C-alpha cells in the first residue's frame, strides 16, 4: 500500500469470525450442525442501526472487499475502488458488512474446514449450498450483529443474485436491493461454461475425488484451466483486443506451443495466482449454486409473481459488453419488477470490459452508485 492508496482506502482491516451452533437446514436437505462465518466490517453502525449495507461476493470473491491487511499488501480488497471514505459505498456514512459465503475458502466453513463428523477436512463431503442457503446464513449473521434490516444489500454477478434472493426471502429486512451484472437464472450457455470448468477440475489426476488435501496436493492444472475459461468469458472480445491485441513477447513465431502471445502470458499468470488463493472444491460448489439459482422455479417459473412479494426498492445495473450476464438478462428482472409496479431504476453502463466491469471504477457506473446510495 503506498501513501496515495492509503489515503483513499479504509486502511487496515481485520477479519472477524463468528460461530453458529444453531443447525442450518440446507436446500439440499442436508443439515450443517454448526459453522463459522468469517466477515469484515467497515465504517460505524449508527445508533438506530439503520445504516448497514451487506456486500455479497461473487464466485471467486471473499469477505476481504476493502482495505488492506498489512501495510506491505500490494493489493487491497476486491471492491476497494467502490467501498471506502468518500467512495460510492461511503464508509463515512454506512456500516458495511462483507461476509465470506459458506462453502467458500476464505475463512467461513467450507470444504477446507474440519468436519467434526468425520474427523478430517470436509473436502468433497461439504454439502452443496445454494443462494437461498447463503441468504439464510447471512440473515443469522445480521441477527448476531443486531442488524434488524439492511439499508441495502448489494453485489455483482452471483452477489447480485444474493441481493435479489434477499429481497424475496426477507422483504422486511432489506430496504434497497442493488443487483449488478446479474440474471434471474443462468442461461444454458452459462451452465455449459460452468460444466466445462468443473470437468477441467475433476479430470485432473491430482483431484483424487476431491480429497486432494489428504494427498498434500491440489488439482492445480484443472483449477487453472477452469479459471482461464471463466476469465475469458468474463471479458469481451473488444476488451481483450484493446488490451492485448495480437502482441507477442518476441517478434517472430517460434513454431511451438509455449507462451508467445501476450494474452497467453496474461491468462497463465492470472491462473497461477488464482490457484494460490482458491480451493478447487469451492470452485465446484460455487458454480453449482450459480447453476441452481432460479428463484421463480417455485412460483411456476413466474418471475413477476416471485418478485410481487418484495418490498425493497431496486437498482439494477448491467454492462453493455457483458455477454455472460448480458443486459437483456438484467432487463428480465426489471420487466418483472415494472410489471408488478415496484420501485426500480435500471441502467446499462457503456463499457468494453465485459462481465468484469462490475469490479472496475468505471466513472458512469460509480457516479450512479454514488448518487443512488447518496439518496438512501
Amino acid at each position, binding site marked *: 500500500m503506498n501513501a496515495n492508496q492509503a489515503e483513499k482506502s479504509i486502511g487496515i482491516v481485520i477479519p472477524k469470525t463468528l460461530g453458529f451452533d444453531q443447525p442450518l437446514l440446507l436446500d439440499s436437505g442436508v443439515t450443517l450442525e454448526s459453522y463459522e462465518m468469517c466477515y469484515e466490517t467497515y465504517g460505524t453502525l449508527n445508533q438506530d442501526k439503520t445504516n448497514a449495507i451487506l456486500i455479497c461476493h461473487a464466485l471467486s470473491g471473499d469477505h476481504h472487499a476493502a482495505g488492506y491487511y498489512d501495510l506491505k499488501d500490494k493489493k487491497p480488497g476486491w471492491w476497494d475502488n467502490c467501498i471506502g471514505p468518500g467512495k460510492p459505498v461511503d464508509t463515512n456514512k454506512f456500516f458495511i458488512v462483507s461476509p465470506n459465503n459458506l462453502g467458500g475458502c476464505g475463512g467461513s466453513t467450507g470444504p477446507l474446514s474440519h468436519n467434526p463428523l468425520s474427523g478430517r477436512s470436509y473436502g468433497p463431503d461439504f454439502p452443496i449450498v445454494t443462494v437461498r442457503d447463503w441468504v439464510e446464513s447471512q440473515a443469522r449473521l445480521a441477527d448476531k450483529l443486531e442488524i434488524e434490516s439492511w439499508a441495502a444489500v448489494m453485489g455483482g454477478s452471483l452477489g447480485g443474485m444474493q441481493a435479489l434472493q434477499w429481497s424475496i426471502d426477507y422483504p422486511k429486512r432489506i430496504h434497497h436491493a442493488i443487483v449488478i451484472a446479474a440474471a434471474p437464472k443462468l442461461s444454458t450457455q452459462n451452465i455449459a461454461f460452468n460444466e466445462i470448468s468443473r470437468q477441467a477440475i475433476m479430470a485432473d489426476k491430482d483431484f483424487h475425488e476431491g480429497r486432494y488435501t489428504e494427498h498434500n496436493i491440489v488439482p492445480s492444472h484443472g483449477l487453472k484451466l477452469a479459471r482461464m475459461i471463466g476469465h475469458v468469458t468474463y471479458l469481451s472480445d473488444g476488451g481483450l483486443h484493446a488490451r492485448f491485441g495480437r502482441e507477442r513477447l518476441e517478434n517472430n513465431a517460434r513454431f511451438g506451443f509455449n507462451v508467445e502471445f501476450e494474452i497467453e502470458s496474461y491468462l497463465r499468470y492470472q491462473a497461477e495466482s488464482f490457484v494460490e488463493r482458491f480451493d478447487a472444491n469451492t470452485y465446484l460448489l460455487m458454480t453449482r449454486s450459480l447453476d441452481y439459482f432460479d428463484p421463480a422455479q417455485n412460483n411456476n417459473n413466474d418471475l413477476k409473481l416471485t418478485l410481487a412479494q418484495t418490498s425493497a426498492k431496486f437498482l439494477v445495473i448491467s454492462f453493455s459488453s457483458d455477454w455472460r450476464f448480458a443486459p437483456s438478462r438484467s432487463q428480465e428482472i426489471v420487466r418483472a419488477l*415494472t410489471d408488478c*409496479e415496484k420501485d426500480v*431504476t435500471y441502467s446499462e453502463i457503456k463499457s468494453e470490459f465485459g462481465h468484469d466491469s462490475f469490479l472496475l471504477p468505471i466513472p*458512469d457506473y460509480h457516479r450512479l452508485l454514488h448518487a*443512488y446510495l447518496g439518496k438512501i
Partner: protein
Amino acid sequence: MLIKNLRREHILVANWIKKGSRVLDLGCGDGSFLAALRTEKQVSGYGIEIDPANIEACIKNSVNVLQTNLDNGLHDFENDSFDYVVMSQTIQAINKPYEVIDEMLRIGKEVIVTFPNMGHWKCRLQFLMGKMPVTTHLPNTWYSTPNIHMCTVRDFNNLCREKNIDIKSKTFLDTHHNQVIGMQLLPNLLAEIAIYRLNQPLDSQKSDSSFA
C-alpha cells in the same frame, strides 16, 4: 420540485394528469416532471432515458428511471399498464415515431405528445430563403441535429387521421410558451410547440374492450 416551477409546457400537461395515476414519461430528462407529479399528485411510474447524466439526475430526484433506447421499442411494458404515457419534445429524435406512437397507445390509456412545430412562420421564412430552419427552439444545424423526424401541426393531424387516432384535445404555445387565441386558430403558422392528448383508435380492439 413543484409543478409551478416546471416549464410551461409541462405545467399544462401536469394539470391534465389525475391524482394517484400511473405515468410513463418517455425521454424524461432529469425527472423533474415526474418528481413534481409525485409530490403534488401522488403519481407513480417510471421515466425512460438514454443519457447517463440524466439517469444520474433522475436518481438524485428520487425518480424511478429506466435506461432504455426508445428506438428498441417498449415491448417490456404490458398493455394498458399506465394511465398516461407522456413524450415531451422527443418524438422528432426517434427513429420510428410511427411505431412508437402505436406502442404508446398500447401501453397507456391516454397518450400526451408534445413536439416542436416545423410549420411555424419562422421556420417557413428560413425555408423560403432556401435554408434548413435554425431557431431558438431548434438550435442545431442540419448536420448536427438529433432531430431527424420534424413535422408540422398539419402533418401530425394527418398522421392521427391515417392511424384513426382519437385526438382528445390539443393546445399550442408560442416562443414565450404562452397560449394566445390567434395561435389556437392558426396553430400551424403561429405555434412553436404543439401538445396533443391522444386516445386509442376508436376501432381498435383495445378501446372496444375499454368502452365495454
